[in-house]
């Protein structure tokens, strides 16, 4: 069950012809898939495409009505392999993931898929996680498209264009027997806009038909001699067919003016940013009207040589606006023009940065430099809309050093935090050890206040990344892996690998019940019920199944002492083979979403309920903040010291505390200070509660008033 409910969005997916769809870009894509008569959809969640997966998971009813099979794939490789259904059958299928990381995982299947080719339209929707807000390696999906010959679409970032291109891509795929990849950047996925809907299409051909009438064609299987034939087909048949389709259907657009010495070629996805830059330079209006010829590449692979030659032939120079590196498009343009013996100068990464996101400011500066050189009259005559910015004031400059960075961190009450607190405490006792991190929320351990973890090599690869540290005499290395990474591949690449190679290293598997970092999707080992998936398969069972013997299950990660003792035991036990600790406590974000409404309802019904939360006594806190350095909980914060003599702020627990208990455990285990207290607040107390409370308060109140009188006698 994902972090959000998409019941409202599911209703939008039902909209019929003529109705206006309002919503996010990635949901518009989902609607477009249904309008295209897709038969099956799969994928692996991850920003920025998680919502596509989540909304379909909540749309089982609608998918059933349309006869669409939806699968939350075990990995991107599983998703890509699923497209094999379109190889022999006229089935339209779509899969999605976060790229390039997901494409890396999928590329084995993609290469095979693209080699044999497809019969039914096969679409891969990649969320291009590049630039601001990205959490992954900064690379381009473009390389995968080129190497496997998959057509790459990069639509202009507005909902009608995106929806049109999703629909067209199935036709392109079928016309060329080639899978198509559609790339959407982070901002386009989260783009709120509208488009006019069409009716959903129930596919004529279904997987059931295929299952009952199986077909095969040995020429579509990647094995010699067919594999050699595939490569020839790619260049001799599929590519020319694609070029024809792209030209005939005008997938690329010629916008802006018809003539001029200088033109601009732009990736579709960057079109709006480019137009804003030109508008601010005074060379376009708000509707995209400009004298400068603009060639929009809604298809960035393959390039269409005829169109490029036609666009460039009468120009002295063209600017290619291509985000990221290597500069594949710029190289291709030069090659195409060289072959056609056209002398038009290709300007690109010489006026635009080689690396990094192309923001409005970057394009504004780049376009200005380009046009000053190649269309000086145009730029001289234009009135820029922005004043040249003055030097920032002294006050603004002074800010630069002072603003504290705000790295992401574990949520309030996160059950993963105690694992790292335990690591810090064990480190104090046995010395520092190498820690191999993985992908997932737990990777926040590499940031303050924990500063734990040396590398992260990919999803599920934490244990494998520690495998070289195999010296039996040296201090054991510790690897961390989430349940998401574990089921994605870590069971084999990590645990199986360690068992097989007799590794002595320690592996901590963070079993919080969900793929938490991607939005709380269910997994094989998820515990709360799921109506459509098979869950509740314990990780310990899987780990023992591949031969691990030293396996410890910890059901309450907040038990810091136990966590610490178990880890220390794992680090020091004489038993050989990998030591696997499965640390299981439910993701707090998801748990609160589940529990909080139930609590509120019970209180409202008048039932006796107890809420626990923690606090810090500002009287006894001396402002050393060791508790924060061992926790980092967002609800454990600071406030100015109420004692004017003390210079350092005191620790303070704000009301977002969920009462997980870690701060109390930390102050016990680390022998910190007596300032932490736990408050048990009884809602709707019963008669006994009131009676006992009355007695206690009576006695204590009397003692307090006596003590108070004595103190006042000596007070200031």
């Amino acid at each position, binding site marked *: 069950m994902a972090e959000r409910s998409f019941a409202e969005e599911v209703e939008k997916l039902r909209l019929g012809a003529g109705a206006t769809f309002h919503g996010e870009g990635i949901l518009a894509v989902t609607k477009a898939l249904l309008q295209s008569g897709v038969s099956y959809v799969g994928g692996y969640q991850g920003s920025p495409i998680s919502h596509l997966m989540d909304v379909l998971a909540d749309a089982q009813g609608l998918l059933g009505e349309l006869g669409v099979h939806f699968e939350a794939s075990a990995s991107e490789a599983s998703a890509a392999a699923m497209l094999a259904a379109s190889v022999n059958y006229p089935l339209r299928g779509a899969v999605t993931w976060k790229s390039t990381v997901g494409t890396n995982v999928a590329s084995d299947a993609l290469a095979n898929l693209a080699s044999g080719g497809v019969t039914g339209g096969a679409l891969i929707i990649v969320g291009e996680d590049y630039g601001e807000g990205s*959490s992954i390696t900064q690379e381009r999906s473009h390389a995968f498209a080129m190497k496997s010959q998959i057509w790459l679409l990069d639509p202009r*970032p507005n909902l009608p264009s995106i929806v049109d291109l999703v629909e067209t891509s199935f036709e392109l795929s079928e016309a060329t027997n080639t899978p198509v990849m559609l790339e959407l950047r982070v*901002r*386009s996925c989260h783009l*709120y806009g509208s488009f006019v809907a069409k009716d959903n299409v129930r596919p004529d051909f279904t997987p059931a038909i295929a299952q009952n009438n199986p077909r095969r064609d040995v020429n579509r299987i990647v094995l010699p001699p067919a594999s050699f034939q595939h490569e020839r087909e790619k260049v001799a048949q599929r590519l020319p067919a694609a070029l024809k389709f792209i030209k005939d259907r005008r997938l690329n657009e010629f916008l802006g003016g018809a003539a001029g010495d200088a033109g601009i070629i732009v990736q579709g996805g960057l079109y709006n*940013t480019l137009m804003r830059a030109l508008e*601010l330079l005074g060379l376009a209006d*708000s*509707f*995209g009207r400009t004298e400068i010829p603009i060639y929009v590449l809604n298809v960035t692979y393959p390039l269409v040589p005829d169109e490029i030659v036609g666009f460039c032939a009468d120009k002295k120079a063209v600017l290619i606006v291509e985000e990221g590196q290597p500069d594949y498009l710029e190289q291709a343009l030069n090659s195409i023009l060289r072959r056609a013996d056209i002398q038009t100068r290709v300007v690109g990464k010489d006026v635009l940065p080689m690396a990094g996101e192309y923001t*409005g400011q970057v394009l504004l500066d780049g376009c200005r430099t380009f046009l000053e050189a190649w269309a000086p009259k145009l730029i001289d005559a234009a009135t820029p*809309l922005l004043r040249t*910015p003055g030097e*920032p004031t002294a*006050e*603004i400059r002074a*800010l630069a050093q*002072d*603003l*504290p960075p*705000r790295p*992401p*961190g*574990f949520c309030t009450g996160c059950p993963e935090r105690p694992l790292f607190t335990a690591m810090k405490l064990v480190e104090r006792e046995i010395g520092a050890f190498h820690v191999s991190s993985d992908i997932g*929320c737990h990777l926040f351990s590499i*940031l*303050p*206040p924990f500063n734990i973890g040396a590398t992260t090599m990919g999803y599920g690869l934490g244990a494998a990344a520690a495998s070289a540290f195999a010296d039996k005499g040296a201090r054991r290395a510790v690897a961390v892996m989430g349940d998401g990474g574990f089921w994605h591949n870590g069971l084999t690449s990590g645990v199986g690998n360690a068992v097989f190679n007799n590794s002595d290293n320690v592996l901590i598997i963070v079993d919080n019940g969900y793929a938490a*970092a*991607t939005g709380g999707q269910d997994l094989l080992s998820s515990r709360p019920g799921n109506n459509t998936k098979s869950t509740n398969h314990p990780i310990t069972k899987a780990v023992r199944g591949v031969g691990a013997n030293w396996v410890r299950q910890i059901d309450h990660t907040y038990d810091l002492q136990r966590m610490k003792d178990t880890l220390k035991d794992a680090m020091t036990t004489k038993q050989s083979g990998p030591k696997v600790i499965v640390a299981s406590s439910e993701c707090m974000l998801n748990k609160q979403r589940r529990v909080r409404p139930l609590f509120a309802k019970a209180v409202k019904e008048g039932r006796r309920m107890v809420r626990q*939360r923690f*606090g810090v006594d500002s009287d006894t806190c*001396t*402002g*050393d*903040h060791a508790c*924060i*350095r061992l926790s*980092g909980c967002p609800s454990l*914060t*600071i406030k*100015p010291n109420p004692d*004017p003599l003390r*210079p350092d702020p005191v620790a303070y627990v704000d009301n977002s505390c969920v009462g997980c208990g870690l*701060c109390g455990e930390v*102050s016990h285990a*680390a*022998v910190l200070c*007596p300032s932490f*207290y736990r*408050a048990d*607040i*009884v*809602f709707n107390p019963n008669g006994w509660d009131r009676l006992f409370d009355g007695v206690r308060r009576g006695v*204590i109140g009397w*003692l*307090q008033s006596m003590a108070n009188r004595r103190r006042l006698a*000596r*007070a*200031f």
Partner: protein
Amino acid sequence: MSGNATRPITLAISALGGQGGGVLSDWIVAAAERSGHVAQATSVPGVAQRTGATVYYIEIFPQPARRASNADPVLALMPVPGDVDVVVAAELMEAGRAILRGIVTPDRTTLVTSTHRVYAVSEKSAMGDGIADSDKVMAAARTAAKTLVAFDMDAAGETSKSVISAVLFGALAGSGALPFDRAVYEDAIKASRMQVEANLAGFALGFERAKGQAETQAVASGASEPRSAAGKRLAARVQSQFPAVTHPTLMLGVAKLLDYQDEAYADLYLDRLQPVAALEAQAGDPRLSYLLTVETGRYLALWMAYEDVIRVADLKTRAERFQRVREEVRATPDQILQVSEFMHPRLVEVAEAMPAWFGRFLMSGTMQRLLAPLFKSGRQVRVTSVRDFLLLSWFASLRPGRRETLRFAQEQARIEGWLTAIRETAPSQYDVAVEIAAAARLIKGYGDTHARGVRNFERIMAERGRLHGAAGAAVMANLIRAALADEAGKALDTAILALVDPAPLAAA
């Protein structure tokens, strides 16, 4: 309002996870659409949605211009510096970040920001005071924005029993930066069907505050007036024997020590300070700030009121503390509250609270072995139960005997050593003496934290012979900073090494 009617109105929102930035963005879009305009919004959620800041970006295209042109506008997906009409920041440092990004410009940007702070982890985890300077952000905001609407919207959210996003929405409406009527904003809230009453209340408060924009800052107060006979006598003593600039600090010190121990102890405090003040009057300080007396007075009071088991038990059992906890955890009068303390006293701390002879006996080898198991793990003390309250009260009742305890003797010896150092240094090295006084801030906390503080303090004090003049004082201040830089003491090691033998570092 946008100066150009045929251009989009551009708006950026910066909010932390959980502050409702997405809801705010949805409301703004809804208000724009309800007014017939074209609205486009997008966001960059940062790394997942965990605690980082999310930046939302909205463009609103005026309907009349669209109709006149009969075309769809091309709207951008990210702000360009200098081209932003409104920036909404849900936290002050995030406003600072927006200013640094250049998207707040004096020719057009309305900056609507909450002035409250959500501290970043670097500020929270500092071993001393790591809080960033809010005044600097406010100063920058005043020069960067065309219009500034700034107040504590988090507090306003609390006051109105609402949330900060509703207050921000109200403040945005009140700023007049967008061409919508108040009713349109309110309709957007109503249409979202979530917590409508509360959100409307938050909105209204934000709206009013933005209209009558006033930045208010609370000012910390000093000590209260003395009420007891002892308090009055000691206050009179401070007034007659010490210069006026020192009075606020010394009054606080006297009050603290009366509360901590008794009248004689407060007198001892002033007795100890008198020579320092006298030295300062004679020679040292040309600025007549009596900085040395003030700093010594501050840290002497804190040191003399060192935290022992007696003190902790005393503070934990007070009636006003019970009341404070009730307020802090927001327990309503009809709810029952139980409070459990997380304590982990070690044998040494209990021994220290005993008469010196008995404390030494407890710490003897045999006794340690016998008693150690009792102190191995921490315990939860339910102070709201009669039994545990009596236990803590008993510890608190040991106060009159504190002078006989082991710890008392240790602390007084350290204090005397520190005061001697101040007195010896002040006549010739005034600036260094001030830093020696300030070095006492390192000694705080309990258990290991306290031991580490004492160790660092003593290491720094050992270097004081090398330090001379203003430069020496700066080195001393640097050593104190280094001691607060990391728990392992690496920064202090490096700093002391550089002091002892600067050559290797200079060569490197």
